[in-house]
């Protein structure tokens, strides 16, 4: 069941040629949840529809619920219950634990929710939650472009022939972008200590990560995995390249301490 107002053709010919998105109506929303600014942008005919407005409200409600249930900073959350050793069996928490285990496996241990201080799935829950919360928006905004930016990690969609220009922040100068990626689907996430000081823990030592890179940006089909790969790539630095280049559809950009950059290209589709 999708919003009935959005059945118009997605493309209208010449007006979308060249810089396709110029001139389309666009609207944004911002709310602060989990201590993060969550921005939603919709571009296209659906930008001003009431259905999209409702879907964005639903998205924010869903994220607030996730925060209440899975934040390690809330004593009454399910994650806090696990940390206290209490049994819990909610389907969502079991799913999160299984995903954390898979993330640990895929990243060779560079991502690990089982930290010395206790179970902390925060690095994965945000992407998981945004993916789930975006379901209604995906339907209500059918035929238009949308993006959700959760504290610098972005899930997005653009109609054929259009894209979102995503700027990657310069970790050496937060008022600048280092480069831009034109993306039409999928997700992009950046991990680094530029804004919050040393807050990313190396699971193998329990201490703040320092791998010689200032930031790692990952592009992947889903926000959950973009977020996980960015975190893991930041923790391990360039040493994560051997397993990163094996991941299908994943692209990573490192900024080294001297400001130089290393990136991988996504694996060509023709090669499998």
């Amino acid at each position: 069941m999708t919003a009935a107002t959005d059945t118009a053709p997605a493309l209208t010919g010449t007006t979308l040629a060249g810089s396709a998105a110029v001139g389309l109506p666009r609207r944004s929303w911002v709310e602060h949840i989990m201590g993060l600014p969550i921005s939603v942008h919709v571009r296209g005919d659906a930008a001003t529809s009431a259905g999209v407005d409702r879907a964005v409200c639903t998205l924010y409600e869903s994220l607030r619920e996730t925060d209440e249930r899975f934040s390690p900073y809330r004593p009454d959350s399910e994650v806090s219950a696990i940390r206290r050793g209490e049994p819990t069996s909610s389907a969502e928490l079991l799913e999160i634990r299984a995903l954390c285990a898979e993330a640990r496996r895929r990243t060779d241990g560079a991502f690990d929710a089982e930290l010395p201080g206790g179970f902390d799935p925060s690095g994965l829950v945000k992407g998981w939650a945004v993916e789930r919360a975006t379901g209604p928006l995906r339907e209500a905004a059918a035929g238009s472009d949308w993006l959700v930016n959760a504290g610098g990690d972005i899930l997005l969609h653009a109609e054929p022939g259009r894209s979102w220009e995503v700027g990657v922040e310069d970790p050496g100068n937060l008022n600048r972008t280092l480069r831009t990626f034109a993306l039409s689907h999928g997700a992009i996430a950046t991990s680094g200590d530029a804004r919050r000081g040393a807050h990313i823990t190396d699971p193998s030592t329990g201490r703040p990560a320092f791998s010689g890179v200032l930031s790692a940006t990952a592009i992947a089909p889903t926000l959950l995995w973009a977020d996980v790969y960015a975190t893991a790539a930041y923790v391990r630095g360039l040493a994560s390249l051997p397993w990163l280049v094996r991941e299908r559809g994943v692209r990573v950009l490192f900024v080294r301490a001297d400001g130089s950059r290393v990136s991988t290209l996504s694996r060509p589709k023709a090669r499998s």
Partner: protein
Amino acid sequence: MRRLTLWFVSTLSALVLLFSYHTSTGGSVETQTAALAPASPGSTSSTSPSSGSSSGSSSGSSSGSFTGSSVDTRWGPVQVEITVENSRITDVQAVVYPSGNGRDEEINAYALPQLHDEVIQAQSAEVDTISGATVTSDGYLTSLQSAIDAAHLGG
């Protein structure tokens, strides 16, 4: 390693020549359709902008990322990507997709990017959103993202 490095440098030279030529015709380069020559020595092939990184700009300035065609080397297939800002190559990236053991991957991934140590001056004015190290609510008001959001709030 040495052979690959030489190949790469010659490719880069070809690109620089190509863009220099275009620039001399008037300063505005239509790089969206520019043909690069990142092929093995002795042959050239045109390329198309990569599906994931071609970057459009409504101001008419020549900026964007362009990916060359894949070239087989003894280290595996190699692709080169360049980033152009205002008719100037500001970034060159290369990567290998080896099919062999993990050690090859590591060597190649380390070796190739050493070639682009250029300082980047890419202040992008046309950006829809910003990916960066986690922005907290406290830091949001001074962030680029907040400016972009504000530009579109209220429809």
